[in-house]
């Protein structure tokens, strides 16, 4: 009993000693948010589906395998979501499509993030002429509606999955530049940045060690939420026939292909549409949750 007590005290002491990271904090906040957890579970499932789909499905046979005789069959026990105009199993295609949509969304946001953070952070920190030029470029990019911008970029570079990612990425760069710059500007004036300067830390290191980590949360939130819009944007381009080349089962192009069959075979558009919605929905729920968890104002 006695020993037990001291043991516990010791444990508590080591616990206090242990590093409790900001990440853990966020996680604790997140756990309380039902929506975020649902979103997280959903998105994890979707990611798992995306990762595992090549194992679960034979691409050549199940996903792009044509059975012209079986075309346009409504949902049944054999084909849960029915078959499309080439007799391909829509269920398999929707499952496999998660790979494309997620990849496009994530890579596009990554592109936007990379360009946006570099330019935005530099603009915010350096200021002056450089900032002016970057912000004017940013103005130019943001005054062209982003869908049109992406369309133009894809048609310029040619249709391919990578170009699609690039186009969506480039088209959504401007907001990231803005967010990064604004975040850096806020942090830039914090006294701890000045303190770092006071101990003789060089500028680049200040950006890297103090400024970026403190902007990161905002940027992560933006990124999560933007993956959703990037997925929608990519689907839009596919819908306009500018997306992932056939026969890849990208959801947007499935929707596009299904639309001429909408009157009698509405399931062809229903399921890929639902898939997009579900993915974006879960990303949004998660993103909202993270934002709330990170926002100190909402903590209390």
């Amino acid at each position, binding site marked *: 009993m006695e020993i037990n007590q001291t043991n516990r005290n010791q444990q508590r002491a080591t616990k206090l000693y242990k590093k409790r990271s900001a990440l853990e904090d966020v996680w604790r906040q997140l756990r309380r948010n039902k929506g975020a957890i649902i979103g997280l579970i959903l998105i994890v499932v979707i990611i798992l589906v995306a990762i595992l789909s090549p194992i679960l499905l034979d691409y050549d046979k199940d996903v792009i395998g044509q059975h012209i005789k079986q075309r346009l069959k409504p949902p049944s026990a054999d084909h849960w979501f029915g078959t499309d105009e080439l007799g391909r199993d829509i269920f398999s295609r929707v499952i496999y499509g998660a790979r494309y949509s997620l990849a496009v969304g994530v890579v596009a946001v990554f592109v936007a993030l990379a360009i946006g953070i570099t330019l935005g952070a530099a603009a915010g920190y350096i200021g002056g002429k450089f900032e002016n030029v970057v912000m*004017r470029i940013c103005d130019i990019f943001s005054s*062209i509606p982003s869908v049109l911008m992406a369309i133009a970029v894809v048609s310029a570079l040619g249709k391919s999955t990578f170009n699609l990612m690039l186009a969506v990425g480039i088209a959504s760069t401007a907001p990231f530049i803005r967010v990064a710059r604004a975040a850096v500007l806020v942090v830039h004036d914090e006294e701890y940045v000045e303190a770092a300067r006071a101990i003789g830390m060089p500028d680049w290191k200040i950006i890297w060690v103090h400024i970026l980590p403190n902007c990161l949360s905002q940027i992560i939130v933006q990124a999560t939420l933007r993956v959703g819009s990037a997925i929608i944007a990519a689907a*839009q381009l596919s819908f306009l026939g500018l997306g992932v080349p056939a026969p890849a089962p990208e959801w947007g192009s499935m929707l596009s292909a299904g639309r001429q069959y909408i009157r009698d075979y509405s399931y062809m*558009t229903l399921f890929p*549409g639902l898939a997009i919605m579900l993915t974006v929905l879960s990303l949004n729920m998660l993103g909202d949750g993270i934002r709330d968890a990170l926002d100190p104002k909402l903590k209390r």
Partner: protein
Amino acid sequence: MYRYILKRLLMLIPVLLGVAFLIFAIMDVAAGDPVYSVAGADATPEQIEALREKMGLNGSLIERYIRYIGNLLKGDLGTSYISKLDVMKVYLQRLPNTLKLATLTMIVAVGMAIPLGITAAVHQNSIRDTTSMVLALIGLSMPNFWLGLLLILFFSLKLGWFPTGGSEGFRSIVLPAITVGTSLAALLTRTTRSSMLDVLRQDYLRTARAKGVSERNVIQKHALRNALIPIITIFGVQFSNVLGGSVLAETVFAWPGVGRLVVDAIDQRDIPTVTGALVMTTMLVTIVNLLVDLVYAFVDPRIKAQYTK
């Protein structure tokens, strides 16, 4: 104030030059030399060259750009490669459709979003709040072209209430407006809610309550006016997006707006139309943004002070 407006309008110039250059550069990289698609299969090399000259496609990118800007300054957006029509004329033909759609869309969105967002914020964490937020999330997650298809399926095909497309009459605008308006309303609802929540925490509302202002007035008079500022921002951004960017809804509903014009022109490598329409759209967007900023000034005297000084 006037100086501020003037300054903003002057800022338009470099942005427009940049937009024009960007489009020029992008279309230059684009696969497919427009001359060949215009010339047809049987064109001889001489004819190709003559045509190239006629289309103003001779010379380097920079030369063409400078020529274009020269014409632009004269108010000439050039003529379409395809229809040979004046781009300005074609753009102006489309603009009313786009404006109609955008306006109705905004009315639908704002009309839904602001009351919903306020209710959600005032009754934070209640059933009403949760419901409207779930709805908003769904609205936000729904690709609008898919929503458009579903609306057609249901309201046009099953019920036959609205036409599926075309630009005649009020009935034909209803479905496109709902399609574009839904995601917008969703976004605005969320913005309204979070902006309102922010304001509801502010001390000056406590001051108002301490004065004996009724709760209704605290929300509708004191809080809303302050909450409007971020809402206006989103409104501005979205309005400009709707102006040029509701391509998808325009495609689904065969709505002959500006977005569709640009996309078709990109399809046809009709560079003058693409550039012209985008330059005009940029101009419009900037003007809308300017108006939004002026509305800001109206709502928030602090911002007005910034403009006037």
